[in-house]
């Protein structure tokens, strides 16, 4: 799967799953509220029945003149009988001070209270107050059901999302594949003529048969630029199926070799080269990755530099610094500069794939890259690795 495909799929999945989760959360919240009310209603109904039963007992006891007047009650409830002045006749609810006597049913904390007004006042009772804890077991059961449902629904919608996501990005995949095929065909066609030009140029320079050295230099730079574009495009095309050959690589030698390769371009732009390359810097790296990393950074530093500017190249045990005195970039440009087909300045040539490749290499090896740039002053790129 291509990087852009993955990105689109993740975006689609996150939006899809988030909206589904919000929808289900609202649904679950409504369901929980309804179930809670249903449980409370059930408890209220039972309390009403118990209060009716108690009222009948009060009527019967009112006629009794026995020494003890027993009232039988379900152990699930706490009973308090109050007179019309709200003074307890028997029992004493701890919630008496909190009861609202204008409401028949009320929830106080985790307790459910039922207040029944009795008239006439058998045994002086004006209010029957029944109290019971809310059905926590029932509520826990509802919560468990909701969580299980959410998990099952989450899994189902994740799978559905993956399926839909693949359908959603299918046209994009086709477009990318078409573009890749085009690049592959183009690069293949470019390779032979570019190689021919470069080989012949070297031959002419070796034989010193040409007097137009400046013109020859320009042809060499243009041909090398073409060659690099070819390499970059091939790298990008093969990147997703790329097998890296990681082995100890003498970065110092490679960097020197690449500086020499860019020497013509540096000379043509009359750049002052400051070169501090520490000897024997070895990294566990694939040769092509290192090559593309160095080439792209050097190419940018030369391409975006001003004529007669400064180019500082520093290689230490833990970092590579390439600094130019070119056009520089503002902070807004720096945010998206590593994206493919982005260019800091459209007046210069290129496809805008250079820093995308650099970014891919950096990511693959866990390096860190920092851009220190100021418009019209220059850019300092630092690639840091752990020794």
């Amino acid at each position: 799967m291509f990087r852009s495909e993955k990105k689109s799929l993740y975006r689609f999945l996150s939006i899809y799953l988030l909206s589904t989760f919000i929808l289900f959360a609202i649904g679950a919240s409504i369901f929980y509220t309804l179930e809670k009310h249903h449980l409370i209603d059930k408890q209220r109904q039972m309390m009403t029945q118990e209060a009716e039963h108690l009222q009948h007992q009060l009527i019967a006891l009112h006629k009794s003149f026995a020494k003890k007047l027993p009232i039988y009650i379900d152990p699930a409830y706490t009973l308090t009988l109050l007179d019309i002045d709200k003074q307890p006749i028997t029992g004493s609810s701890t919630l008496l001070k909190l009861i609202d006597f204008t409401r028949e049913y009320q929830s106080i904390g985790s307790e459910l209270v039922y207040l029944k007004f009795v008239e006439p006042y058998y045994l002086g009772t004006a209010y029957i107050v029944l109290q019971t804890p809310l059905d926590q077991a029932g509520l826990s059961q509802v919560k468990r059901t909701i969580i299980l449902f959410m998990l099952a629904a989450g899994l189902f919608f994740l799978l559905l999302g993956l399926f839909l996501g693949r359908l959603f990005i299918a046209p994009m995949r086709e477009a990318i594949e078409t573009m890749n095929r085009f690049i592959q065909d183009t690069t293949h066609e470019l390779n032979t003529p570019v190689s021919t030009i470069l080989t012949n140029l070297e031959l002419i320079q070796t034989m010193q048969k040409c007097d137009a050295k400046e013109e020859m230099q320009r042809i060499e730079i243009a041909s090398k630029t073409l060659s690099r574009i070819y390499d970059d495009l091939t790298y990008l095309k093969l990147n997703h199926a790329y097998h890296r050959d990681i082995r100890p690589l003498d970065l110092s030698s490679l960097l020197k070799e690449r500086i020499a390769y860019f020497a013509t371009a540096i000379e043509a732009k009359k750049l002052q080269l400051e070169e501090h390359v520490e000897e024997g810097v070895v990294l566990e790296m694939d040769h092509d990755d290192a090559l593309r990393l160095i080439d792209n950074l050097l190419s940018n530093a030369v391409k975006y530099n001003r004529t007669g500017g400064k180019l500082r190249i520093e290689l230490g045990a833990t970092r590579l610094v390439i600094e130019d005195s070119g056009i520089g970039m503002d902070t807004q440009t720096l945010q998206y500069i590593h994206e493919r087909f982005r260019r800091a300045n459209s007046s210069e040539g290129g496809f805008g794939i250079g820093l995308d490749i650099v970014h891919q290499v950096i990511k693959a090896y866990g390096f860190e890259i920092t851009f220190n740039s100021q418009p019209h002053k220059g850019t300092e790129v630092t690639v840091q690795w752990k020794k």
Partner: protein
Amino acid sequence: MEKINNTAHRYSPVLLCILVLIPGTLKAAPQQETVSLQKQCLACHEAQQIPSEMIYRRYLMRYSSKQTIKKKIFSYLQHPSVSTSIMPAPFFGKFPLKKATTLDDKRLERLIEAYIAHYDVDGKIVIVTQNED
């Protein structure tokens, strides 16, 4: 220290008497009212077989509040009439209407309180949870 001990020792019989007499005095007051109630009210009610407890239950059923019951009994005893009585009119066909009381207000109030305390149901009602059967 010794002085304090001697003082406490000297007054200890007096303190003992106070401690013994106070609860007795406190207990004696309601007992005295109960005796008075028996003598002033219930003796006559019992002789005439007037159902005193049933009368109190009627007060309870109509007014519920002890304060209101107290006021209503007080008012009735000062000006008894068939129309202001808690009992229905046919009751007076069987039992005579009481004469207005001659007791002073404070004494009458105390006796009414004793009457209410004597017949009240507060201490009689017992809540029994059904698994205790």
